[in-house]
């Protein structure tokens, strides 16, 4: 499902002394099956924006189109129920939302809530758990006994159980250790590639954004500053430094080298794979000039 924002404004507590405009004239397009990261500092509007994707918030003005559904300020709650099944949301620290006595009951809750039979939901719970890399043994365990990384997976399995077309993830790896982070990110990428789920990732880890996203939406003060590939965003130093956006470590190191006089014309490396090519290239070029 394609996502389209047209001239979207969002105002919290309108017509009150606390009125606050969180989104201003947001226009963007997210293609079906793509992997898009939303970045920006705290308070830039990331959370407000993603809450429009399943109708938790409705635009104060303008419209949001998701597939065939157009959401405006006047849409009725009853028109949003189908959307809520199609858009899965994994909020920050989702393990805090685990509530059932067993992992199985927790994962089944979504499908049953959306009208699936108990029997079918049981089957779905198994499949979803497998998708997140946990085996059947976990079904009867209490979510509270699991490690942080395992709980995060169970929460994700709960979202996947309703088979969303669009998966929205708010800081899915925050607080996990190095291995846990890598595993979750790989899993999300796999969902995009194998199930063609549209992935929308809010993240503070620029390394994750550079490694996994195809498209980046950069927000500042409720406005879209730029929508482009990670490569274009991170190599645009004017924008990143003006907005205080941290760039990937590889980009920082490559910039240090260029400042010192290393000769390189291509776009700056944004992840380790492209950094390795960058290193190889600069030394090869240097050797060539020496021979000439």
């Amino acid at each position: 499902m394609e996502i389209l924002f047209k001239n979207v404004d969002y105002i919290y507590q309108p017509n009150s002394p606390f009125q606050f405009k969180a989104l201003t004239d947001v226009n963007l397009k997210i293609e079906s099956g793509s992997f898009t990261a939303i970045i920006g500092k705290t308070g830039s509007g990331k959370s407000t924006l993603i809450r429009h994707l399943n109708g938790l918030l409705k635009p104060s003005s303008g419209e949001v189109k998701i597939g065939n559904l157009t959401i405006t300020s006047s849409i009725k709650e009853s028109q949003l129920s189908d959307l809520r099944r199609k858009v899965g949301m994994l909020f920050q620290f989702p393990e805090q939302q685990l509530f059932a006595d067993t992992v199985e009951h927790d994962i089944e809750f979504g499908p049953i809530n959306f009208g699936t039979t108990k029997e079918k939901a049981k089957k779905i719970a198994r499949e979803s758990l497998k998708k997140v890399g946990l085996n059947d043994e976990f079904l009867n365990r209490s979510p509270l006994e699991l490690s942080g990384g395992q709980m995060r997976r169970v929460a994700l399995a709960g979202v996947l159980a309703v088979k969303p077309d669009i998966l929205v993830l708010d800081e899915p790896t925050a607080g996990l250790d190095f291995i846990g982070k890598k595993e979750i990110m790989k899993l999300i990428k796999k969902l995009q590639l194998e199930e063609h789920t549209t992935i929308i990732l809010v993240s503070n880890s620029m390394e994750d954004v550079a490694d996994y996203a195809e498209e980046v939406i950069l927000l500042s003060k409720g406005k879209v500053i730029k929508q482009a590939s990670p490569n274009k965003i991170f190599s645009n130093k004017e924008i990143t430094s003006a907005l205080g956006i941290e760039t990937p470590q590889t980009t920082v190191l490559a910039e240090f080298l260029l400042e010192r006089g290393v000769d390189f014309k291509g776009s700056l490396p944004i992840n380790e794979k492209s950094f390795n090519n960058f290193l190889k290239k600069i030394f090869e070029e240097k050797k060539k000039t020496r021979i000439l």
Partner: protein
Amino acid sequence: MSNKALEIKNLSFKYRHNSKETLKKINLSVEKGKWLSILSRNGSGKTTLIKLAAGLLENSSKGSIKIFDQEVNQENFASIKEHIGMVFQNPDNQFVGPTVQDDVAFGLENKSIERNEMIERVDSALKDVEMIEFANREPNSLSGGQKQRVALASVLALQPDIIILDEATSMLDPKGRKSLLKLVQKLRSQYKITVIAITHDIQEIEQSDQVIIIDGGKKKLEGKPAKILIEDEKLESFGLEVPFTKRVRKRLFELGIILPNDYESKEMVANKIWKYYSKM
């Protein structure tokens, strides 16, 4: 007061429902005013170790834990508690007051500190963490980094000798993380506070005086950050990330460029590469 903030001897620990020991024969000593980082992947026993040291879990082993020469046990719990302040992982789970200053005052009220002194201490703690302008704000309206600063102020107001950071930065963005660690470093030297930080992030150990790595409940490595940061293979085997500049060094080696095996910042590595490059 003794010069040893924490001394652990031969500590093993097993949870009742577990068949295996969570901690195995840990020995550890931290001098007053130093910064110890306990580094390990999730589920390796570091939180258990900290809970035991703070008296939040009862030490049922033969091993001993001492805070400033006093054995940590139920009888001594009240005075042990006086020494220690803790900041936890999730900024949203540690607020009790309706405003920032009420929150910082909470611990002082519990100790029946006299009102004038309380106001003074709250003010000075909020100044120390650079959050005084936010004194009347609602904690919920703050960013993650600001919330952790307030949590730190609440701890500081109680004037502890030891501050324990239990993955206190792991929910923050890279800037919030750096700035919180810098602040802790400043407070440590200003008030001679001992810092014990548990983390799974290798980038966070740079500022510490002493690092231990725990894996599978055992102490596997101990030393200064410079020594720990160059142990690429060992770090990997303990499920930890090899520092970025060390990964770069490895890549350079494959290209036939050999840098010394020291831990260095990105800028220093850039200088080395440039030196090599410009002489080519």
